[in-house]
């Protein structure tokens, strides 16, 4: 465990805007985390647990990989 940004990228911000400009506070409440955690996820400073990632994807009604992506290894 280290203090550094995650490689996981996400479309949470775009998904929020596509779903009636849902606020970070509303998403946080529906997922069961703090608003600061949603901010950290959107800014790529935190990758949530698989369970929270599934809950976020489910709020938007999309598959997990539409909400979160992980870059291919090169080499």
């Amino acid at each position, binding site marked *: 465990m*280290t*203090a550094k940004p*995650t*490689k996981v990228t996400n479309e949470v911000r775009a998904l929020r805007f596509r779903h009636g400009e849902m606020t970070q506070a509303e998403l946080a409440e529906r997922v069961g985390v*703090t608003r*600061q*955690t949603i901010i*950290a996820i959107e800014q790529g*400073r935190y990758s949530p647990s698989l369970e929270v990632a599934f809950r976020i994807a489910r709020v938007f009604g999309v598959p997990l990989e539409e909400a979160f992506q992980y870059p291919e290894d090169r080499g």
Partner: protein
Amino acid sequence: MLSVALYIDPMSSFSYVRDAMGYKERSTWIELVVAVGVFLWYLAAISGRVRGTPIADVAFQGPMIRATLLSIVATIVLHFAYAIVVGSRDTQEDQRDRQVARFGDWVGMWPLVFGAGTALVLAMLELDHFWVANAIYGGFVVSSVTTSVARLVAYQRGLSLA
């Protein structure tokens, strides 16, 4: 121009802090301020007694006990004061807070181990109680500061479990 650049609206600053930081991050800042502030108070109290007195005769026990009690009381009071001034009712904690806390605990464990190890060596060398007690106390203080700083860095830079 300079006065304009340096002007900080206290209420907007409070709003920024309230919105940008969660309860646990604010709490970590309070713990850091208390740890540093109380240690500086302890140093000032001890330095006044050390001058002109053999180390073996320095009464460090009183200031050390008062510093410990002061840090507990100050932490509680500052949490209450912050909640009143900023009007924060949000005390929610989630998995990110717990992971950040564990990361900080892991980083902060090492100064504590080092302080205890140093105290063990000093005791074996039969040095004065002053040095043994202060090695342990110093370990606690550095551990507390390191834990808080590691948590704040994790909050700001991000936390990767990989």
